[in-house]
């Protein structure tokens, strides 16, 4: 029993409430918001160190014993995701401080931002499926608000499909949940783990598993359910789109990993076999879609999809090494992708556009920005010794180990295609001289609010790349916990009780 689990959820909601109360005092609201993200990050670090030292932490909310009450559980996977949430939340909040100064509709931004952080933390920590649904809805509501804040034309064009498709996904999730409850009589994931093996209606359970896969697949942007993602992620403000790109699809991936390791483990040949095919197709379509794009954030959006394919690949292969690769990939990808979106914002500040045809000259005018793009971009493409190299290496090695040569070949080829896209951005935006039609603004001076988060995230990418060992070991522990969920189940249900 540990009450540490509640703080990463409580603090953001407290901050959100406080920033609503400070509606008329923007300066104070901003200060509270920044204090809030730092508090959240601290709470995440404390919980992280508790889990790495003492193992899985469990909180039975209201002291109702599992499976009757709601359990909050923090295992290695949860706290790793939570740590990245804390880091990205802080980075995005600081970037937004630089972005929002001239923006008139910033009042509701802070409240929504912190509700989103709270929802994310809740989703990573809950051990109950219905509770997970509630956290998903909390995140959705906040993300809808952030998506449309600013109310520009393009935002509405992006927000309508985003809202409809995400609503459909949660309805699918709720439908699967209802049927699962009808069959097993429980929604506690640890309890479900025990009940599902002995249940007689295995076929029905597999059908429900695919409902869950479709629901989380829409959230994660997996093939063929990803079309909403590139249609909407380039429309909101830069800090918001960085947080979305880093976190929101990855919550879907996290939910897939959680349910398809802990809950639906009865018919892995079918479920994980389908996942493997989908993973390959997701990688290929994402990267090909990116190759056809010509706007900075659109290219990055399509790359989210292809990278989600890599993560699904590790889950589908279901070996300790593959899962280690998936967890490593998640951590690496969230940081790198959020950073790339932030850098795209720096590029727009200089060139006044994100259309690559009209960008240019960044390398000559702003070499620091060029370096800050170079690190995450080539980490994403998998250049050694950056973090993406190790993530890809682990996954390719894992697929070779179990003789899945085709997927391994796809993973390598998609990595090469990623290099193509990144080089395209590099040449168009950084190397090419500024086209005469472009609006080059030579007098842009960067506020530290925007530069600091980008620098810190790039530094983290370098540290994960050069000192990969600690992250690898954490990912390895997380993977072992996922492969052998008995530890998790015992921690939640307390040994022999039902």
């Amino acid at each position, binding site marked *: 029993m540990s009450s540490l689990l509640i703080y990463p959820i409580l603090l953001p909601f407290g901050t959100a409430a406080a920033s609503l109360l400070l509606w008329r005092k923007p300066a104070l609201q901003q200060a509270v918001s920044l204090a809030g993200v730092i508090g959240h990050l601290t709470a995440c670090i404390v919980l992280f160190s508790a889990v790495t030292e003492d193992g899985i932490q469990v909180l039975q909310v209201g002291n109702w014993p599992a499976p009757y009450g709601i359990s909050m559980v923090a295992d290695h996977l949860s706290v790793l995701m939570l740590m990245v949430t804390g880091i990205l939340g802080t980075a995005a909040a600081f970037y937004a401080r630089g*972005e*929002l100064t*001239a*923006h*008139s509709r910033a009042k509701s931004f802070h409240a929504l931002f912190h509700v989103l952080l709270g929802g994310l933390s809740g989703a990573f920590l809950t051990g109950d499926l*219905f509770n997970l*649904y*509630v956290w998903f*809805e909390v995140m*959705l*509501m906040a993300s*809808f608000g952030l998506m*449309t804040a*600013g*109310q*520009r*034309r*393009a935002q*509405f*064009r992006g*927000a*309508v499909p985003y*809202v*409809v498709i995400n*609503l*459909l996904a949660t*309805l699918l999730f*709720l*439908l699967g*949940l*209802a*049927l699962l*409850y*009808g*069959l097993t009589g429980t929604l506690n994931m640890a309890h479900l783990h025990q009940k599902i093996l002995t249940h007689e209606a295995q076929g029905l359970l597999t059908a429900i598993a695919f409902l869950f896969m479709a629901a989380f697949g829409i959230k994660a942007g997996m093939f063929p359910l990803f079309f909403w993602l590139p249609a909407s992620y*380039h*429309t909101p*403000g*830069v800090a918001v789109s960085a947080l979305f790109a880093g976190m929101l699809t990855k919550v879907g991936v996290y939910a897939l990993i959680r349910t398809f390791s802990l809950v639906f483990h009865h018919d892995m040949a079918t479920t994980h076999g389908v996942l493997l095919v989908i993973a390959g197709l997701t990688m290929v379509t994402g990267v090909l879609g990116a190759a056809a794009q*010509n*706007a900075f954030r*659109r290219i990055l959006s399509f790359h989210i999809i292809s990278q989600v394919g890599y993560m699904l690949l590790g889950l589908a292969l279901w070996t300790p090494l593959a899962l280690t690769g998936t967890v490593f990939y998640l951590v690496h990808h969230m940081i790198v992708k959020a950073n790339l979106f932030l850098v795209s914002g720096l590029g*727009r*500040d200089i060139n*006044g*556009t*994100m*259309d690559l*045809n009209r960008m240019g000259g960044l390398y000559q005018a702003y070499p620091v920005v060029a370096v800050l793009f170079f690190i995450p971009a080539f980490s994403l493409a998998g250049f050694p010794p950056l973090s993406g190299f190790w993530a890809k290496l682990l996954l390719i090695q894992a697929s070779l180990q179990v003789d899945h040569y085709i997927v391994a070949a796809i993973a390598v080829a998609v990595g090469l295609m990623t290099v193509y896209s990144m080089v395209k951005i590099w040449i168009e935006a950084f190397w090419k001289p500024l086209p005469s039609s472009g609006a080059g603004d030579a007098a842009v001076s960067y506020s530290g609010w925007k530069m600091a988060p980008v620098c810190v995230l790039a530094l983290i990418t370098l540290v994960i790349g050069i000192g990969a060992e600690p992250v690898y070991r954490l990912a390895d522990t997380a993977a072992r916990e996922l492969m052998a969920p008995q530890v998790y189940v015992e921690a939640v249900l307390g040994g022999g009780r039902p």
Partner: protein
Amino acid sequence: METALAIVSGSMVAGGIYLLLSQNLVRILFGLIMLSNAVNLVIFTAGGLTHTKPALIEAGRSVPGTTVANALPQALILTAIVIGFALLVFMFVLFYRSYEILGTIDTRQMAESDPEQPHAADTTTARQEGGL
């Protein structure tokens, strides 16, 4: 009774999806309302339909004397209805504002108002609004 409710919720899902496939935002909205109600009905049905007493414990006892109905599915539906209501209210406002700003409720026309280069229109407005 289960069969009847299963048929009802199945046809509601079918109707909801039919409406969702439309190009008209108002129809899409009704489709989502129908779907979310269908899912609530599924929770109700899957929770088990029994003729038992409500889950109330008489004074002076700590456990119910007779078999009582499972209150959990109703709690789940209540939560789902509240959340669904909030989402639908947001969608009403979003669709109305989209109609005001984009001038259409036809999804195809909305997509067509997206120019060839998505950021051309994007950045001019962004610049006017202070560089976001």
